[in-house]
């Protein structure tokens, strides 16, 4: 059984991968090959293509996949993507937060004495928008990995990052100062497929809802 009549779905590897495969199992999609083969990326029989979560909107916008599953954090970071956001899938819950070193007021001090705060993040657009929306000037420093070390080394005063349990932050003696967004996995659709394959997509959405996603 495939994801749906002729539908191709982009599935995120990484933290959403297991929950997504469990969801596909509940939809009677055969995920055994996907689970057993972590080097293969395209599974034509199941109608599944796997990729990093931040690539999912790209494939879906261009119609290389009809549907996709990715985090709300990814969608917020790529607001220009023309995709339908169809369902909140409820899993993969985490928070986009501003964090800084425990017991340290360098954020406030920088804002007061330098007029701006330096912020490291893998989400430059979410971070820039949050500081702009709250009327603070910020210098956004984009990093690609392990953002936690940025404040410890003096690169920045604070970070904007995604956290589920807060454990990594705590291990690095960082504390959450502000919560920007609650993020969960979302089901997205290509705008043209949403029309031309309406029946198959609506059928899949109904089955996802029946399988226990949160109703939007």
């Amino acid at each position, binding site marked *: 059984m495939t994801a749906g009549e*002729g539908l191709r779905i982009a599935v995120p590897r990484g933290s959403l991968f297991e929950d997504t495969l469990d969801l596909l199992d509940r939809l009677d999609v055969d995920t055994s090959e996907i689970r057993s083969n972590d080097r293969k990326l395209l599974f034509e029989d199941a109608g599944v293509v796997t990729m990093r979560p931040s690539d999912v909107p*790209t494939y879906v*916008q*261009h*119609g*290389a996949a009809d549907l996709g599953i990715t985090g709300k954090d990814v969608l917020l970071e*790529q*607001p*220009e*993507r*023309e*995709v*339908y*956001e*169809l*369902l*909140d899938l409820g899993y993969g819950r985490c928070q986009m937060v501003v964090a800084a070193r425990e017991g340290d007021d360098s954020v406030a001090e920088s804002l007061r004495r330098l007029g701006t705060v330096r912020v490291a993040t893998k989400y430059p657009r979410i971070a820039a928008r949050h500081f702009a929306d709250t009327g603070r000037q910020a210098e956004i420093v984009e990093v690609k990995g392990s953002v936690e070390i940025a404040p410890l080394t003096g690169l920045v005063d604070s970070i904007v990052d995604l956290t589920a349990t807060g454990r990594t932050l705590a291990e690095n003696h960082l504390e959450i100062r502000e919560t920007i967004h609650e993020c969960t996995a*979302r089901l997205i659709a*290509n*705008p*043209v*497929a*949403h*029309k*031309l394959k*309406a*029946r198959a997509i*609506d059928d899949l959405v109904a089955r996802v809802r029946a399988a226990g996603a949160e*109703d*939007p």
Partner: protein
Amino acid sequence: MAEAVIHPIPPGTRDMLPDEMRELAALNERLHAVFAAAGYGEVRTPAIEYEDVLRRGDDRAAGASFRLFDGSGRVLALRSDTTIPIARLVASRYADAPMPLRLCYFDNAYRPAQPGRGQASEFMQAGLELVGSPAPGGDVEVIALVLDALDAAGLGRHRVGLGDGSLYRRLLASFGVPEGERPVLLDALSRRDLVGLATHVDGLSLSRTARDALVGLPALRGGPEILATDVEPVHAALAGLRACYEALDARGAGDRVILDLGLVRELGYYTGVVFEIYDPAVGFALGGGGRYDELLGRFGRPLPACGVALDVQRVHTAMLAEERLAARGTSE
């Protein structure tokens, strides 16, 4: 072999060489033959206009983003669509012309390229404007003609998504949603964020009927069965769309139409039906248009009007994608 000397050109623009130009010219010629046979005369307006003239048509000058100054300091803008310039042209040049007026154009338009979207900032449009012909007859003529033109161009599986640009606004008014709450709902709809839309609607403490209509309608698309409803405000709001669909169906184009109650178009001047053209081989719309009965009034000639613009390069891309699918012997 001599090494190429690379000089940059602005992002979103590109050079076109003879192979591509030959195919684009052939495509434009086929589209033009269909437009001309239906009585549409070709016009050309300047690529630059006074910005305040474009703003008459749309508060955001239809999204124009390339601006320059003339010698006396007036702001000029590169047009981002051709509908507003043609509204200006009709008001200025056709004061005594008998209506309806049928015009077509083959011209470039300019919008800012957004990184990562593979979007051109300079793009070639082929379009129609039918001025002085009210709904639904005018809408049907324009939609049927653009479908025919794409048949003539060599596409065969294209469809038209048909919605109503004023539907959601009218529903918000008829269900008594407070004015202050409406922009956030319309914004979620325009971003196609059905999750956010549902969350905001749920926060409004509306009746069950209103809640279900405001959340459910934008997700409805398909055949004429989606127009059936017992909910009176919805039934009334769908009257225009129903009339347009029935007239298209009577012309034999019904099976080409996908009714789409969530269809939104980014330009603000649409007052009635809006539509987009799709081909199953590509994941983007090939073009679109709609009815704009108030636009010409802003230029001093209150006339109903309707138009469509095809993105010629996107049509070209779809033609190649269809050829490749056919060559692979697959069909979706």
